[in-house]
């Protein structure tokens, strides 16, 4: 579809301009649905947590409060953006941009279905890891540019936490690469064909949990949201942000949540593959579900787990958080790299053939 568009555009434009326009259209086609999901994810979060705490959640704007995200967006856009007196104004503005740019850029390599991907590159997993490692700059620069003690403390905590959990995350990805033999996300999903038992969930069960927990820490969600820690440091790194600059930080956080859910489903839960492959009657009964439908189902479940954990757990104490990252998750991942190596050597189960 995009090739024909590009061919049409290059018939009357410069070649590089035609490619650029096509790329922009592709980016919008991916980013716009993500932003809509982000908007209603905030609604889902408030509703889910509301029902868990035996209250209604938003129910005034629109039917069942369904238009609440739009009302919130209009409110945020109309609010005044305040610049602290001693803040470094340029960095203060660029920090939310640095927070959201990697969260959006990472979507370039995520496959939504067989062949439905903007850029099907060989080093897809590495790209995701590299891009999400830039994410930390939004937090650090926001904390420093605000010229406030609370914001700076929050930024310090956030940066140290993200760097620590990135190591565990990277090792969890290494085990996936070992089992799949490829860094291409489409190849990783296709390696899991043949029903639920062939998913990488079973041989990499500890890594699934390590990856998801590290994902919680990467996105600063409870129980790892010491970056915001409102009881200790007001609201952390974005204490001085108001209006849409604050809104952009929230957009980035939710976009990263969705990204982590997508990565978890692609690498451990078979991506867009049906869980009933190879089961005689169920496979036929569910053959009408599109590939994107299965992926969306798995992603929504993981997103629900994000919200569920937020309503369930209290916040970690900072030293315990660091202990979990360095002394529990990283040793487990290193051990599992060896376990996967042994499983690979002996062609264990249906996963390594």
């Amino acid at each position, binding site marked *: 579809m995009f090739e024909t568009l590009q061919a049409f555009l290059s018939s009357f434009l410069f070649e590089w301009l035609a490619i650029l326009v096509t790329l922009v259209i592709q980016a919008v086609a991916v980013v716009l649905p993500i932003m809509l999901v982000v908007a209603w994810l905030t609604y889902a979060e408030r509703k889910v947590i509301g029902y868990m705490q035996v209250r209604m959640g938003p129910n005034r704007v629109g039917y069942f409060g369904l238009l609440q995200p739009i009302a919130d967006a209009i409110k945020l856009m109309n609010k005044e953006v305040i610049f602290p007196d001693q803040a470094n104004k340029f960095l203060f503005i660029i920090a939310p941009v640095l927070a959201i740019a990697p969260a959006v850029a990472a979507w370039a390599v995520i496959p939504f279905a067989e062949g439905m991907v903007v850029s099907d590159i060989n080093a897809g997993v590495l790209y995701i890891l590299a891009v999400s*490692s830039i994410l930390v700059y939004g937090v650090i620069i926001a904390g420093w540019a605000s010229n406030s003690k609370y914001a700076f403390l929050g930024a310090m905590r956030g940066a140290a936490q993200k760097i620590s959990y990135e190591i565990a995350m990277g090792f969890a990805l290494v085990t996936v690469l070992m089992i799949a033999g490829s860094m291409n996300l489409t190849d990783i999903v296709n390696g899991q064909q043949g029903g639920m038992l062939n998913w990488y969930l079973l041989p990499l069960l500890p890594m699934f949990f390590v990856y998801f927990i590290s994902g919680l820490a990467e996105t600063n969600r409870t129980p790892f949201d010491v970056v915001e820690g409102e009881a200790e440091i007001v609201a952390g790194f974005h204490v001085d942000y108001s209006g849409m600059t604050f809104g952009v930080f929230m957009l980035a956080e939710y976009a990263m949540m969705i990204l982590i859910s997508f990565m978890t489903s692609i690498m451990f839960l078979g991506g867009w593959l049906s869980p009933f492959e190879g089961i005689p009657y169920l496979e036929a009964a569910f053959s009408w579900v599109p590939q994107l439908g299965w992926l969306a189902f798995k992603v929504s479940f993981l997103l629900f787990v994000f919200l569920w954990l937020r309503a369930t757990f209290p916040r970690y104490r900072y030293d315990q958080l660091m202990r979990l990252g360095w002394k529990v998750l990283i040793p487990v991942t290193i051990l599992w790299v060896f376990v996967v190596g042994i499983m690979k050597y002996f062609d264990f189960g249906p996963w390594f053939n």
Partner: protein
Amino acid sequence: MTFELFIFYLLTAVATVSGLMMITIKNPVKAALWLILAFIATAGVWIMAQAEFLGLVLILVYVGALMVLFLFVVMMLDVNISVLKEGFTQYLPLGVMASIAIFSMMYLVVGPEHFGIDVTGEPVSNSENYNNTKSIAIPLYTTHAYAFVLAAVLLLLGIVAAISLTLRRRPTTEVLYQNIDKQVKTLATDRFRLVKMASVVEKAIPSKKEDEK
């Protein structure tokens, strides 16, 4: 101009400008940020040269981890620039001599006569299925395995040295240490005890007003 060439010139321009800004700008935090931009642009150039593994690892290691720690240090230090500038003219001749020496050595090693199509040959364009990661990994773990292991041991040594330099235990009279393992393993029974006792019934206080109603 093809699109690739356009991107190449864009990335190289960003890399050059940010490199210059990094050494000329006064604020050390901003200098570190310009250096990060230079790294990202260089990684882009590497990716364009079909070395996508190296480019992404450059971002992952240098931008994602190393420069974050560097920024930490620079942000925490209260650098007084006016003190640093003292004696600038006094040291200028020595500095100029040192920089001339360094640049002339660099010119001898990486001067223009070492580059160009006639020296390096035409760049090899690989097919679409070319996997940069594999073509780095195979020689790394076969022909250069010993050097690779040696480098790993060296890095491990660095980690151990850095930790042992900063690790200090102070007597418990000065600092209170937390035993997190013990804290995590705590059970509810360690924290409180249920006591059985006869229930005490409070005497009802007669309220005249309510009785009247």
